[in-house]
């Protein structure tokens, strides 16, 4: 039982973070799903003590463009293989959604990673392990606020400083925060840091 309690508490945190993540990317997420407390979470998803991860799957659409949808897929398997990826792809195809996030408790096999790369043309798949999501890193004290700039804002920025794209400071695509926001190559994030000299300071980084 202790094991199960542990497990559901973990999943509750993961679930909260993934909802925050989806919300921060500009998709519709209801407030109560983020602020749901542990007891309600247990009552809804694990009424009998054990918890079925597939119940946590959900999809939602973008705040601005309702055809742009994202699907979050939880898997039970400790090590995700090609089979699971197939299953996810099947669901995506069925619901005609082209963005998917897979959340897994253990690790991912290299061949499953290859699937993500191979399908990059059709589907945007992202993977997070539960360990990545137990704590929402964007709320960490050391991590300043990141905001993704729209292409227009990016153009204004480049003109203001008369920059070429290569001259901007960079952020890696594999950077944990970049992964959180699902940055794509060429997107710019605005970073608002607290500063000991000027109070607040805005910087920019381009994803590459």
């Amino acid at each position, binding site marked *: 039982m202790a094991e199960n309690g542990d497990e559901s508490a973990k999943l509750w945190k993961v679930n909260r973070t993934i909802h925050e993540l989806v919300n921060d990317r500009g998709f519709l997420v209801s407030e109560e799903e983020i602020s749901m407390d542990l007891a309600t979470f247990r009552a809804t998803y694990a009424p009998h003590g054990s918890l079925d991860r597939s119940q946590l799957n959900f999809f939602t659409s973008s705040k601005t463009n309702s055809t742009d949808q994202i699907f979050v897929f939880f898997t039970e398997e400790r090590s995700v293989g090609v089979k699971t990826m197939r299953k996810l792809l099947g669901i995506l195809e069925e619901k005609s959604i082209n963005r998917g996030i897979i959340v897994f408790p253990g690790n991912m096999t290299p061949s499953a990673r290859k699937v993500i790369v191979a399908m990059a043309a059709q589907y945007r798949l992202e993977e997070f392990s539960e360990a990545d999501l*137990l*704590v929402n*890193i964007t709320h*960490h004290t050391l991590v300043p606020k990141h905001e993704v700039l729209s292409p227009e804002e990016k153009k204004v920025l480049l003109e203001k400083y008369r*920059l070429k794209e290569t*001259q901007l400071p960079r952020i890696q695509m594999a950077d944990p*925060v970049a992964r959180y926001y699902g940055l794509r190559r060429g997107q710019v994030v605005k970073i608002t*840091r607290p500063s000991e*000299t000027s109070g607040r300071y805005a910087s920019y980084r381009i994803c590459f």
Partner: protein
Amino acid sequence: MYINSELPGVPSQPGQKPIRGFVQRLKGKQGRFRGNLSGKRVDFSGRTVISPDPNLRIDEVAVPERVSKILTYPERVTTHNIEMLKQAVRNGCDVHPGANFVARGDNKKFLKFGNRAAIADGLKYGDVVERHIIDGDIVLFNRQPSLHKLSIMCHRVKVRPWRSFRLNECVCGPYNADFDGDEMNLHVPQTEEARTEALELMSVKHNLVTPRNGEPVIAAIQDFITASYLLSRRDVFFDRRQFTQICCYFADANLQIDIPPPTIWKPVRLWTGKQIFNVLMRPNKKSKIFVNVESKCNKWEEAKAENYPSRMKLVNDMSPNDGWLVIVNSEVMCGVMDKAIVGSGKKKSIFGVMLRDYGPHEAAAAMGRLAKLCAPNFGFSLGINDVIPGPILSMKKDELVERAYADCQDLIALAKKGKLENKPGCNQEQTLEAMISSVLSKVREAVGNICMKELSRHNAPLIMATCGSKGSVINVSQMVACVGQQIIAGHRVPDGFQDRSLPHFPKKSKEPPSKGFVRNSFYSGLRATEFLFHAISGREGLVDTAVKTAETGYMQRRLMKALEDLTTQYDLSVRNSTGGVVQFTYGDDGLDPACLEGDAQPIEFQRAWSHAMAIGSRTGRGLLPFEIMEIVNVQFATRRFVETCPETYMETVRTFIWDNVAKKLGDMRQSRGMFEALEREGEWDEDTDLSMGASDSEKAIVDNKSKVTESQLLAFLNICWVKYAKARIEPGSTVGAVGAQSIGEPGTQMTLKTFHFAGVASMNVTLGVPRIKEIINAAKAISTPIISCRLVTCNSEPSARIVKGRLEKTLLGDIASVLEEAWAPEYTYVGIIIDTQAIMKLQLELTLDDIKWAIVAHKKLKIKQEAITMIPRKNRLRIYVDGQDKFYRLREFKRNLAAVVVKGVPTIARAIINIKDKDDHRGKKGDKELLVEGYGLQKCMITEGVIGEQTTSNHVIEVAQVLGIEAARRTIINEIQYTMKSHDMIIDPRHVMLLGDVMTYKGEVLGITRFGVAKMKDSVMMLASFEKTTDHLFDASAYGKNDSIAGVSESIIMGNPAARCGTSMPALYSVAPVLSKPRPLLFEESI
């Protein structure tokens, strides 16, 4: 062999001179790149021994006549200088204000021979005379190692007899020079342009403060401080003759001196020593130098409440040792002139204040006056009498030492019985060591205090220690009373023989004398063993310095190479030579660290306010609180404020005035029964009595306490504007180079302190140069990785212990009471009996099932799940073994099982519960937090009971992996600042931020190493001049690379002025000329 004579595997022929291949010619410090291209030998330079001369101005250097006749400056003949130059030509090479050559066009004549008079008469406008350098000429003066920009400064020449370069002692600080045989170099700039640049940018006067943090570095040192201190003590009085004599010392004949009225009129007119400093700061009534400052002196004693009646409120300046300085309008009210007031390193010293308020010329002049004043005054010496302890002192010291010995004996006896209570994370032995060390260090401290009390106030070492000019209390007490414990590598003297440090002591002895405690003083003489211990510790210090200089030198070079081309642009962004942005605004606010008065702020409000109050006129009507705020707002709306200062700055000024002026005045009015009048209200008009009929005396009280006139307020606002406008960084500033120097230079000064206890004994953090090196190398493996975790329930010890159990690595061997082999015909197994008591005690959440899975999960052992049976009733586990090699398998299991990690994170060595000793942003005092030694930040963050959002690590690379590049940048900045602060070194945050940005702007954490720099820079030339010269050249030729010669290193190699920075930034840009295609070579086809 011809190309590279150091090919591996090719043996060098003995007896034959090794061939120098192309590779060898290029690489290394003496190679073509570093020896001939990046650094060149120059003409018009000199080098000789230096010596002091306090009668020189601080921006002068005395040049020997011999030298001045060799160094020349080519001066063009004009109407203004023709007579002077004619005379110089007549004098020729051998008489001092002479000349060596005359040039007309390409025709150059040597003046040693030939008819000089004829040449002089034929001198025409436009000729160039290479004349000897004369008084007032501009030269650059330099001492190696040139660690920062202040190591080469511009002085004015003073031609003097004899053989040494002489300089004012105040300038020793930035050069780090002394006169024990140091030599320095002198260079003469050869064009007017170079002279102007040198004078404006490198002059001593413009470099009174270090750009590291804006503190003065050129200030009084050593005997100047002692003399000022002795002069300014409270019991120093002079009659008119003495006073005028002293005033004459510090001035030259062309300074008018007005003698102030004497402090004591009857029976004789006497002036105080402090009045000398009034005259020094403001020599005559015409002078407009009004210094206003209030500051703590070097040693400030707090006034004791019992010495005053209880109704009195104690204030700072009631210090019994006169340790609080107050200067109002250049009059010293109280306080002595010691290190903190006339020395370097304090922004609130009088020279620092003069520099900020009245400019470098006034500060330099005052400093020159101080140097001249202190030179001829008192004799000050030290003799054997100064280090003889009095009877009381020796008695007290012996008593203290004996008591400490007895305490140590008690501790040792306790430890032997094992009754010493262990400190967290320590075993018995470590606890004993820590406790003995603390007892012994207290002895030295106590003896030092007795020395300060018992020694005469005329004792020379004591005077030097109190005024901070040389030496410390420890040095005094070492000479007089007791040398104290000798430390080697952070511990007491280790055992050099079997179980003892020296054969003079019994084995296993832990008493103070056998472990390096020296109870004698240098005066009483050390015993043989003590002498050896002292020598060991002294040798360690020497070795450490030698190693450190080499290490910091290399670190400095790498930092410099990585940051050299970063400059501020016209939009105040910081970019490298290829135009890549490193910061969008320098230091987040575009201010120059060298011009900052407060702590990383352009202005120190409190002082600026009192200065404004003192210089502004006090006559006129006092403003009402709301009027104050109105005037502030009106001023802030004017164009000059709007255009210069950002909103945040104006807001801080406004808040300051509101909190410290308007609100205070309002409160004062209210307490005397008047309207507060903090805001203008609609119903008030001209005739409303805002004082609500308060009496005149009460109005006077309010006025006396907090009157502010309009002129005072305007003066303050003006200061605020001026300070901000001055502090803005100039476009083209080489912020990268200055930042690199500001971080590298303090490294050389870091002392032996390599470790520091992070709250808990035994939890060491690496500090000093090794730590800085780790950070800027972006090392993957650091010597003390520490993760600090904030706990969910931070006030309960048991819950902290539970979390600790979750994190800390627990081995099976720790919780198993028995590991046994069982042999039987039918089965063989390894039996494990779990000690549940131990599990309970350690408060681990561990079940048999967990242990089983932990064993199964162990990679090397390869135990199948089926092989393990649990007997929960008896707390036993059995691992059955079967098969061919069961004996060996069994043995292997038994050997390795103890090392199986059953609980916790394998990469974590240990965790310690720390109780915070002060409040900070991470929690209150007394809160528990968990300090985890080891790697695994993510594992710690996601552990239950830890607040993941507030868990931080000191490992930059790990932070980058878990939290991203921005968090890594923050960590770099925090860690460097923390390291520097624990060595009492203050570095402006802007420099550290720049370093953090440079290390992270490429998206990954790049170390300042050859690999990191290679990723940051594109220029082949620059990389070749850094490290791996030939590899980069081979690469470049293979790939046919281009180099745009845009950076600093490349420009120097090509002999150009450094492009796009400093004074060469304003330039005419034009389209690059089109080069025609190279003519095809005759035999091109054949290649």
